[in-house]
């Protein structure tokens, strides 16, 4: 089945810094989503982005489907950005596969 790898596994930022999270996948995908899991465990859908670029406030995402990767950009990070960021892909079957996540901690 499709493999999903996220990097880095852990990231510590000073408030105000920018960061880039990466998601590599091993096969073509029909769907790619980025989620944020807050410290209380709630998973929030950030982007549905099988290809192209999208922006939402301080967050943006780019998926290059032909090269099998996606990037999530966080600008001017805030302490509320802390949590785990997951990439999840669907390769055309019924199942969506999650990566292991990037754990982000933003220091005040």
């Amino acid at each position, binding site marked *: 089945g499709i493999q999903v790898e996220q990097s880095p596994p852990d990231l510590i930022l000073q408030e105000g810094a920018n960061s880039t999270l990466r998601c590599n996948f091993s096969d073509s995908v029909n*769907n790619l*989503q980025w989620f944020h899991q807050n410290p209380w465990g*709630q*998973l929030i*859908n950030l982007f549905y982005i099988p290809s192209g670029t999208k922006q939402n406030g301080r967050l943006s995402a780019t998926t290059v489907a032909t090269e099998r990767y996606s990037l999530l950009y966080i600008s001017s990070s805030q302490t509320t950005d802390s949590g785990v960021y*997951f990439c999840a892909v669907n390769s055309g079957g*019924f199942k*969506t*596969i999650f990566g292991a996540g990037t754990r982000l901690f933003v220091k005040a």
Partner: protein
Amino acid sequence: EAGVAQSPRYKIIEKRQSVAFWCNPISGHATLYWYQQILGQGPKLLIQFQNNGVVDDSQLPKDRFSAERLKGVDSTLKIQPAKLEDSAVYLCASSRTTGGIDGYTFGSGTRLTVV
């Protein structure tokens, strides 16, 4: 629109006991998913329903786990008997289409501790 509702929020049981979780998806979402998230890992799909039929249960430990979605709306996930390694957060999600191609919405989860 209302979100995905799950209950209970927390549950602590002893090993070999049984437990059940409940999920009510977003109205009109035909596909419902149960995920298991062990601490430090990404969510793992246990079972996926399309209306009231099972689409994928390949990773469901069927000797102890069962799930149903009667009437194609809300769903229950049961563990009997529980083991220590079942300690995890159980997440329910729903989507309008099969496979979540249009995006998922997750509930707040049930945190299960087996002692």
